[in-house]
């Protein structure tokens, strides 16, 4: 259904007239004008602005920026988007009436031609150098195309019917067969604005639109063509094609990197790779007024220890000797390529605070004719965006170099853990896994020491000292006042104590085989681990394998407080808050000790993830949850996660600080960490999957010439116990024109920020309020663009900035995610779990998490080795004769259409017919045929891309499990009341118009 290139070009010819100017004079839309326009039902075209990627400030706006009006008839009051220049005659033909749109009132179809599907970044495509325009998904303005959107004039609506309550009746599942929308469903967009009684009044002219019958008149439902609205798939594909081929060179300030979905190489030439830092915008407004006006959050998503592809070199380690890394005396920023050497190289001016510092004699070097040090290219800190310094003893706790970190495995051995076979599985796995502890560089053997604890309502420590003939178990029952019963022999080198450890791991499952203890403790376990690290004077990581709500008498005892009745009430937030303060206190102590906690949960019922995840969350750890764990079904997933988690390279006892040049400053931080003051992000542990999102605010004017600089410094202890500083530098452009801001935004990052912001918000505000805030902010962003940047056009037109055209669809996904709008089947634990996962996700993860990838399997030729092109996440896109894979980073579904070819069934499932496929199947049989190999290979490669193992679930069309699957078809209306993409877009348009008026 994707438009072809030819179609694009065809369309583009039609559209040059739409908008002449990329920048509209402010306030060009007079209310009257607006009112006039509103009535028309226009096809919308998405605004589109073209520019040569990232090159300097001269963005060439090719032709009229496309303004794509998307439309939805379903919103009685949502505006429609005229693709006509202002003043053009009203609707050509309403008669063309597009059947797709249903509005109860009636629709006034407008001309179709201007409705654009996802616009691709024109200039990036060599073939589209012309004034590329949003194309329509179907060639030409054919009347039969459902890409017209008609919308009734809002004023025609009886106010009362505009909106039902936000929690109105759940709309039925959107299905292709049912093209209509219920007017009520727009109510399900968060903002409960009420009926807006005055809405109608600004549009007294409604009757002038002769074609529009009064509200009562029912019309055949029409709908907006989904193909006509911006498609994430198209955007991703275009970016891949345009930017995936050449390396991204970071030398130039303010370049927007390729999308996270694009495979590209990075060449560090002075700015940190986008793998380390991505920003919401690479061109930030010079003044806070501008920033406020635009409402575009200024944020950076930083992944300081990101893993790099093998082709890219990891940061060089710089040793400045005993004096330690060279820093600015005033702001303490570290030496970086942006520092200006002056006075022949004897001094340097800090690029962050402008302080002039002396260059120490041993660091002196002459400058060349351009004022650059002649050794600039020999020194990573003068030429690269990312590098590391060796820290001196001043950077260490207690002024002592750290000892190598330790891993402590803490295993729940209560009845549930034993019964499910978890303990046996885990112990067996650990025996081999311990050989793969993270090592530094070329080290022969890992420096990390290991320790073991098992527990139910008491704790068992193990002495596995190499000199012992057999392990010693020490039971500590005094959980109220936890302590570590041994010092020597608890943390050991794996190789030295191999025999004892192996004997221990053999015995643990046996020892507790007959246990009947069902109660567990939790806080004392972490406390014990933390105390052990404290006693050993090292940082480290606890791997906690836990099964049940800790109800045994001990600190941090919890009760089952799960109450679904709280959902959608003001008290809903309590479900996300920890039950007691004990967990935060403990987490604080852990952070002070550099004790990171990774929690593996195996609950059969409510375990209060919200509370249990507090410590992992604040210590930079991870939480893994395996509900109703069964060895047969979940072994693969658990072991794979465990292996990955244990082998992960981790930095311990870390402190991260983000410095900025004068004018902006980091004000807010999101992620898994703890902050005891407002500037230092403390991370007991930080791995390559964890990100920290940082928000910036202006505190002064920025200068267009000097731009804005970020320096993220991470002080951490490596796996081998070496204290280091990792520095990432990034320079951004500054602008005085809002258009520059909108041209250099990155929607994926924006969504990352907004999701984290919203997910944190649910702790303090009702979920509905959080959703409203998001919608409002999004509307403001887009309205600001429309007002200030888009060429004057009909107010009925929805004009989206090119860089943000996916904002509505993605935002909608965030709004209807489990946390913000839970379905009936989503447990409180699931919500808390997802909430905490998203908090430390990077941009790529949030992208696929909120907008899952749906891959058709039989469309592309079987020989092709590349991933098949994805399709949009909507049921309409599924063909019942095909098989699809859907993944979102956590889940993986294989959807089988009901009329799938028998041959395909046979070669994939080794059964003869569709009906014989086991629904819910978790593994595909290993069959020796090209299709099976290809599909399995694809599944493997998808898994390899994600930081967590995705368990496969085979879903058959029309099967019960399909409900689960459909939950992830995010462009559709969701069962829990989430709007479909189309509906949301209409709603968003309405919001924008409201703002503009």
């Amino acid at each position, binding site marked *: 259904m994707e438009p072809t290139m030819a179609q694009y070009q065809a369309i583009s010819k039609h559209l040059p007239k739409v908008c002449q100017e990329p920048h509209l004079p402010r306030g060009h839309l007079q209310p009257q004008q607006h009112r006039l326009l509103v009535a028309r039902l226009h096809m919308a075209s998405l605004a589109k602005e073209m520019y040569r990627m990232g090159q300097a400030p001269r963005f060439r706006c090719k032709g009229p920026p496309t303004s794509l009006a998307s439309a939805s008839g379903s919103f009685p009051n949502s505006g429609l988007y005229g693709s006509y220049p202002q003043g053009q005659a009203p609707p050509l033909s309403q008669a063309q009436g597009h059947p797709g749109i249903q509005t109860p009132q009636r629709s006034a179809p407008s001309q179709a031609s201007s409705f654009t599907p996802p616009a691709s970044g024109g200039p990036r495509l060599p073939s589209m150098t012309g004034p590329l325009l949003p194309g329509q998904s179907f060639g030409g303005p054919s009347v039969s195309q459902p890409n017209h959107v008609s919308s009734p004039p809002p004023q025609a609506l009886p106010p009362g019917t505009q909106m039902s309550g936000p929690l109105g009746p759940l709309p039925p599942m959107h299905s292709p067969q049912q093209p209509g929308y219920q007017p009520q469903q727009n109510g399900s967009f968060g903002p409960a604005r009420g009926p807006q009684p005055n809405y109608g009044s600004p549009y007294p002219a409604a009757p002038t639109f002769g074609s529009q019958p009064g509200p009562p008149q029912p019309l055949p439902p029409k709908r907006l063509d989904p193909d006509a609205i911006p498609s994430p798939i198209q955007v991703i594909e275009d970016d891949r094609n345009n930017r995936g081929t050449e390396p991204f060179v970071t030398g130039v300030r303010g370049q927007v990197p390729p999308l996270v979905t694009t495979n590209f190489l990075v060449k560090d030439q002075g700015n940190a790779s986008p793998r380390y830092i991505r920003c919401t915008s690479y061109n930030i407004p010079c003044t806070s007024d501008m920033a406020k006006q635009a409402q575009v959050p200024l944020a950076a998503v930083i992944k300081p220890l990101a893993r790099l592809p093998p082709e890219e070199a990891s940061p060089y380690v710089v040793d400045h000797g005993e004096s330690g890394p060279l820093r600015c005396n005033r702001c303490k920023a570290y030496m970086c390529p942006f520092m200006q050497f002056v006075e022949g190289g004897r001094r340097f001016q800090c690029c962050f605070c402008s302080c002039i510092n002396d260059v120490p004699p041993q660091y002196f070097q002459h400058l060349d004719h351009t004022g650059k040090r002649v050794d600039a290219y020999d020194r990573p800190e003068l030429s690269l965006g990312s590098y590391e310094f060796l820290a001196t003893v001043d950077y260490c706790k207690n002024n002592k170099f750290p000892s190598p970190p330790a891993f402590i495995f803490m295993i729940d051995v209560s009845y549930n853990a034993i019964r499910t076979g978890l303990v046996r599985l885990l112990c067996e796995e650990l025996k081999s896994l311990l050989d793969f502890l993270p090592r530094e560089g070329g080290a022969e053997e890992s420096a990390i020491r290991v320790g073991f604890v098992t527990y139910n309502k008491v704790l068992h420590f193990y002495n596995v000292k190499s000199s012992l003939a057999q392990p010693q178990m020490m039971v*500590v029952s005094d959980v109220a*006042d936890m*302590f570590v019963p041994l010092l020597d022999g608890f943390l050991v080198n794996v190789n030295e104590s191999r025999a004892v450890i192996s004997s221990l791991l053999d015995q643990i499952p046996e*020892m507790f085989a007959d246990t009947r203890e069902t109660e567990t403790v939790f806080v004392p376990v972490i406390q014990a681990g933390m105390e052990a690290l404290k006693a050993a004077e090292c940082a480290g990581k606890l791997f906690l394998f836990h099964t049940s709500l800790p109800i045994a008498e001990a600190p941090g005892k919890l009760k089952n407080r799960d109450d679904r009745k709280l959902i959608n009430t003001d008290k809903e937030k309590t479900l996300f808050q920890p039950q007691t303060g004990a967990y935060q206190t403990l987490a604080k102590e852990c952070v002070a000790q550099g004790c990171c906690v990774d929690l593996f949960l195996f609950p059969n019922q409510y375990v209060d993830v919200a509370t249990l995840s507090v410590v992992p969350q604040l210590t930079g750890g991870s939480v893994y949850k395996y509900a109703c764990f069964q060895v047969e079904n979940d072994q693969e997933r658990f072991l794979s996660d465990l292996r990955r988690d244990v082998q992960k390279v981790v930095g311990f006892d870390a402190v991260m600080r983000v410095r900025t040049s004068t004018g902006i400053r980091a004000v807010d931080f999101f992620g898994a960490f703890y902050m005891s003051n407002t500037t230092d992000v403390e991370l007991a542990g930080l791995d390559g999957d964890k990100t920290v999102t940082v928000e910036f605010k202006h505190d002064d004017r920025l200068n267009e010439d000097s731009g804005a600089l970020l320096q993220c410094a991470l002080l951490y202890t490596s796996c081998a116990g070496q204290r280091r500083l990792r520095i990432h530098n990034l320079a951004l452009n500054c602008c005085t024109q809002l258009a520059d801001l909108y041209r250099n935004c990155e929607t994926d990052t924006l969504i990352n920020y907004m999701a984290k912001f919203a997910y944190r918000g649910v702790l303090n505000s009702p979920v509905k309020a959080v959703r409203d805030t998001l919608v409002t902010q999004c509307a403001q962003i887009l309205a600001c663009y429309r007002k200030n940047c888009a060429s004057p056009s009909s107010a009925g037109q929805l004009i989206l900035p090119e860089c943000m055209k996916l904002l509505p669809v993605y935002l909608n996904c965030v709004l209807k995610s489990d946390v913000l709008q839970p379905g009936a089947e989503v447990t409180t634990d699931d919500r808390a779990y997802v909430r905490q996962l998203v908090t430390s996700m990077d941009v790529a993860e949030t992208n696929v998490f909120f907008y899952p990838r749906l891959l058709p399997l039989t469309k592309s030729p079987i020989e092709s080795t590349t991933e098949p092109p994805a399709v949009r996440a909507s049921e309409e896109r599924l063909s019942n004769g095909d098989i699809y894979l859907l993944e979102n980073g956590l889940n993986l579904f294989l959807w089988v259409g009901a009329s799938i070819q028998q041959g395909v069934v046979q070669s994939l499932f080794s059964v003869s017919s569709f009906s014989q496929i086991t629904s819910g199947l978790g593994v595909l049989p290993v069959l020796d045929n090209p299709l099976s190999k290809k599909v399995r290979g694809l599944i493997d490669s998808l898994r390899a891309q994600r930081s967590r193992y995705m368990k496969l679930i085979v879903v058959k069309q029309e099967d019960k499990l399909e409900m689960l699957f459909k939950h992830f078809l995010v462009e559709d209306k969701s069962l829990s009341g989430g709007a479909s993409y189309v509906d949301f877009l209409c709603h968003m348009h309405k919001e924008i118009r409201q703002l503009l008026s």
Partner: protein
Amino acid sequence: MATYLEFIQQNEERDGVRFSWNVWPSSRLEATRMVVPLACLLTPLKERPDLPPVQYEPVLCSRPTCKAVLNPLCQVDYRAKLWACNFCFQRNQFPPAYGGISEVNQPAELMPQFSTIEYVIQRGAQSPLIFLYVVDTCLEEDDLQALKESLQMSLSLLPPDALVGLITFGRMVQVHELSCEGISKSYVFRGTKDLTAKQIQDMLGLTKPAMPMQQARPAQPQEHPFASSRFLQPVHKIDMNLTDLLGELQRDPWPVTQGKRPLRSTGVALSIAVGLLEGTFPNTGARIMLFTGGPPTQGPGMVVGDELKIPIRSWHDIEKDNARFMKKATKHYEMLANRTAANGHCIDIYACALDQTGLLEMKCCANLTGGYMVMGDSFNTSLFKQTFQRIFTKDFNGDFRMAFGATLDVKTSRELKIAGAIGPCVSLNVKGPCVSENELGVGGTSQWKICGLDPTSTLGIYFEVVNQHNTPIPQGGRGAIQFVTHYQHSSTQRRIRVTTIARNWADVQSQLRHIEAAFDQEAAAVLMARLGVFRAESEEGPDVLRWLDRQLIRLCQKFGQYNKEDPTSFRLSDSFSLYPQFMFHLRRSPFLQVFNNSPDSSYYRHHFARQDLTQSLIMIQPILYSYSFHGPPEPVLLDSSSILADRILLMDTFFQIVIYLGETIAQWRKAGYQDMPEYENFKHLLQAPLDDAQEILQARFPMPRYINTEHGGSQARFLLSKVNPSQTHNNLYAWGQETGAPILTDDVSLQVFMDHLKKLAVSSAC
């Protein structure tokens, strides 16, 4: 007089009883004027190889308040098959089993030679003996090694079915589970936290599991009759395990920084040991054996902090009320001791360290429960090793010389009441008609509990004559006392030993000579000393000395022969002649003197309060033997004049055996004469005291400290501090040089003491 000595000796051998007075003053008034109370030293389990226990139960008087045991003093009507209780005069029917008795067919308990008889009770479940080792791991490596070896060795000495348990402590306390294969398990407790018995049992998982457990596995309770079986296992089952476990025992791994004492959680360890047994085997014979190498330094019961710069409390601190931990610690251990006693268990303390170990605070643990207290310099000494081994020696029947959970019940005839007891016992608070209101020692009861005792454990029991002066006892009347001791024999049998004695009443006015002659000055000295030591526990030292002096003066006034105001005329009869000398040495002993003694010398008091008469006398007045070429070894006066250049002295103070070579002898030995064949007799002379010392060492428990020194040797102080300082630097020249060694002291000598005593005794002012 010889007859009385024989009588006394015979009685002691048969009944294990020695009375201060063997003829009793017949009225209360007279008795109080006798100064030394009517009292006895009772050795309840005195070894009687000639006394086989009878295999039936005693016949008791049917009066509920009496319940005296049928004994040879009872009047029996063989025809009516009736017997009259000689304490309450209740007439009792013989039980059916006694149907066949007659004058010629008497049960043993009626025969006069069976004034002491032992019954074996067949009733009741027998439970094995329990030994719970509580081991300090904050020791030096070789000390710990030695201790481990001793413990491992002891496993082979225990009865095979005895239950053993192991608790180790240092900074933490570990209760070891003994039954596990493949992995050694222990429960660990923080050493700083006092836990209630309930908490301890909960944490050890000893509390009865809730209902579901029983439903789930009905078979399990039978498999494991005791939840505690994890911690206490029969020796024969786990001796290999335990040997290995002890072998792997490491020193407390927690680092001790310079200037600190190791953290030692003795208080908590004991508390856990007590709690463990309390919850699992109440009222069953059990020994908690605490091995410690230093003072408790943390948690409840701490005696001193871990800062080395703050020394452990001294008497000086205690007097100044500067011992900040003492009261709290003492209270903690007292609480433990009382709980232990209530459960019928006993606590032994084996403290081996060069410095003090806090025995002062911990003493009640052993004192109240009848446990042993052993103090040594190191576990790596024969003193400890052999003492420890000696605990497990067996008697002629092959039974261990230890008994448990005893109760001593004393019954008296009407003219007497019980004032109290002093010894390793606690009161059971049984009030009865024969309990006096005046307390001497632990009083107010007629029954005491002695949780641990051996054949030498001896109690001092004090009586009060209550017969009024105006109701004279008919001529030939006899007072009777019955001691009934229930105990758990080391063979786990329950046994009852009954000793019934009778003594004549005598009117003081008319028969003072008789009474005088029947005075047992040795027993009296020990009994008075016990009273003095008992008082010293709660009173200031000088007050006790003053009290003792006054008693002595009054005794001399009462029984001496003298002319008023004429000290030279003062004479004491033979039966009193040694008494003042005992008192002299008692005054100088560590039992009453704090000067030059550490607070931990409560160790000496502990032993003094439980040893039998002979040993107690040695403690009061050490024995000194002299070896010379002039004749066979002879006992000599404990006097500085006995220290002669050509003599070898052997002193036995009970706690120490000192061999002292006179100046000349030492020079000879230095010159190597003993190695020359022609001076073989010198070699023999040197050897003789060594052999004798070995003999004493072999027999004594606890093993004494063995000191071999010579003239001018630093260790000679042990001898010099004991002998009567008849020659000091003050009177040296008056006495002439050849006759002995001067002692550098300002202490008064026996001669001065006696002179004063005479003066005071004859003075009418007193």
